[in-house]
């Protein structure tokens, strides 16, 4: 019995508390077959073993709570560590730059890493916390993204309720394809900038 079987068997027997617990620790960064669990929950809803609104409410709440814990730990634990390190080693300006960048782009990053690029989720939580991204905005994008994630995966489970194992396998691979494509585009753009001749500096 692998970990997936254990988690799904527990979900079947104990229901919502397992859903809550597993999603919570996954949001903090422990890797579990979480998409498979949501797809399975969707299937159980379709078969009348679980209630749709309960699954969506509990899963969303657990995900958001886990993200907030990771954010808080990084913000008040990680930030102190970064400050101390940068004071000792130097590079305070760079830390400030990284923070400014995160503050500017994090909204989209937080939102997309909740439901599309789920592999990046825990990292974005930590990065947002360390960069002291405004908490209210983090919460806003977090709730929006996580609810979408839960509805999406439970919906897929509901629609393909007789093919949980198959769908989850495909989704698991697909998540990496999407993340890989986005990183490819970013790196490719970087390469294009290297190859292209630099623009002439403005005269005067």
């Amino acid at each position: 019995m692998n970990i997936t079987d254990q988690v799904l068997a527990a979900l079947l027997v104990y229901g919502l508390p397992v859903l809550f617990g597993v999603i919570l620790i996954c949001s903090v960064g422990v890797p579990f077959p979480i998409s498979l669990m949501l797809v399975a929950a969707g299937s159980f809803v379709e078969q009348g073993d679980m209630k749709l609104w309960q699954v969506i409410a509990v899963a969303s709440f657990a995900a958001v709570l886990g993200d907030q814990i990771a954010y808080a730990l990084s913000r008040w634990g990680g930030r102190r560590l970064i400050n101390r390190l940068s004071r000792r080693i130097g590079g305070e300006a760079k830390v400030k730059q990284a923070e400014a960048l995160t503050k500017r782009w994090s909204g989209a990053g937080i939102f997309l890493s909740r439901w599309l690029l789920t592999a990046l989720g825990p990292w974005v939580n930590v990065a947002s916390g360390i960069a002291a991204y405004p908490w209210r905005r983090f919460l806003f994008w977090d709730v929006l993204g996580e609810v979408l994630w839960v509805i999406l995966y439970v919906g897929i489970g509901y629609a393909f309720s007789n093919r949980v194992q198959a769908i989850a396998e495909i989704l698991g691979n697909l998540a990496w394809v999407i993340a890989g494509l986005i990183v490819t585009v970013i790196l490719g753009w970087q390469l294009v900038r290297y190859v292209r001749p630099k623009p002439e500096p403005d005269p005067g």
Partner: protein
Amino acid sequence: MKKLEWRQWLVVLAFVLVVSVTGLFTVRTVRRAIYWHYHQDEPIRPWMSLGYIAHSYSVPPWVLHQALGLPPTPDRRPIREIAREQHRSVNEVIAILQDAIVHARPPYPPPGPPPPPDNIPTKNPSPGQTQGRSP
């Protein structure tokens, strides 16, 4: 200047690496999708309940309950629990279920309605239930 070139090579390396990994996962995704397109049945796993297996394989649940000697009442337990209770291995239970599924599908006659709870079923009822199935 030198430092920048070194960094550019690093980006090239990262790019090649990411493209390869993405390609690998794309191939895997497509292969899985094609596989599941042609294989209607997913393998029975220890986490599945009898209800889920019946749903997934489109057979009446009572057929599976009967195969394991269980009453035809809804049972949410994963089959590994049932196996433990019956002092069987999970693989043994899976084999019994697969056998029952094979016999509940064409070319075998459809299983028909569930048996009344008190009677022990001995054969398939209602031979008139062919529902226009073409050979």
